[in-house]
């Protein structure tokens, strides 16, 4: 099954988007812990896109395509901000002492760790981030 949801680029709309995605996942019988990860990935991706859209004063809409098949959930986030590949950010230093550790950079790290696969591409005028998760929380090969 495949569904596309759209929201304006406003933080307040994130709740509506997450609620809509939760509804889709519940209908499809996706287990709670996986739905939680999808929710978290969605928040991290959308907040990241909003941050960039805001900085540049660009970006009108974010759409999310959800596909569920063969034990995989594929989320495709599409925004119309300036080109921005979140996967280019270096991984945060998780082992640094708390006094020296930067407080940012965790969102992208979370996305990478929760997902089976993440990829970015630019299709003018859109940034497209594709995140794949497993529908079975225990089926993780790893």
């Amino acid at each position, binding site marked *: 099954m495949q569904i596309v949801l759209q929201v304006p680029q406003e933080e307040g709309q994130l709740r509506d988007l997450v609620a809509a995605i939760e509804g889709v996942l519940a209908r499809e019988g996706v287990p709670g812990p996986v739905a939680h990860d999808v929710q978290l990935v969605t928040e991290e991706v959308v*907040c990241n896109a909003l941050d960039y859209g805001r900085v540049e004063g660009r970006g009108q809409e974010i759409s999310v395509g959800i596909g569920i098949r063969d034990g995989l959930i594929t989320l495709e986030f599409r925004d119309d901000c300036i080109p921005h590949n979140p996967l280019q950010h270096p991984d945060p230093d998780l082992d640094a002492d708390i006094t020296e550790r930067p407080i940012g950079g965790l969102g992208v790290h979370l996305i990478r760790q929760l997902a089976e696969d993440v990829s970015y591409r630019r299709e003018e005028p859109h940034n497209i981030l594709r995140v794949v998760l497993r529908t079975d929380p225990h089926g993780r090969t790893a």
Partner: protein
Amino acid sequence: MSLSVQIESANGGSQRVAIAGRLDTHTYQELDRQLAPVLETLNKSLVLDLAGLEYISSAGVRSIFKARKALAARGGKVLVVNPQPQIQKVFDVVKAVPMNEIFSSVAEADAYLDAMQRKVLEGDDNE
């Protein structure tokens, strides 16, 4: 679907704060706002009781980092108690709090703090 922050009266070696609901991009500022006066004056460790916390995102983890940084500057710690599995998972992924500073009960956290305190008093702290 929101956040509740309960700041208990300080007792002994720690200040306990119970956080319930969702700690995310919509609510982290509320936690920052409520913790600010506590962090400003606290001269001991903060025990965050997360039994009622259902969801945390990186925005929420950043708030916990800010608290850890503020207290670390004064030799204090942020101990975490009772995190639900999905919260523990996020903490593990981003190493939000060292493993040995996460406890399954407030009593356990208090015992840890007492032991830490004794160590300091005995001048035994070789770290």
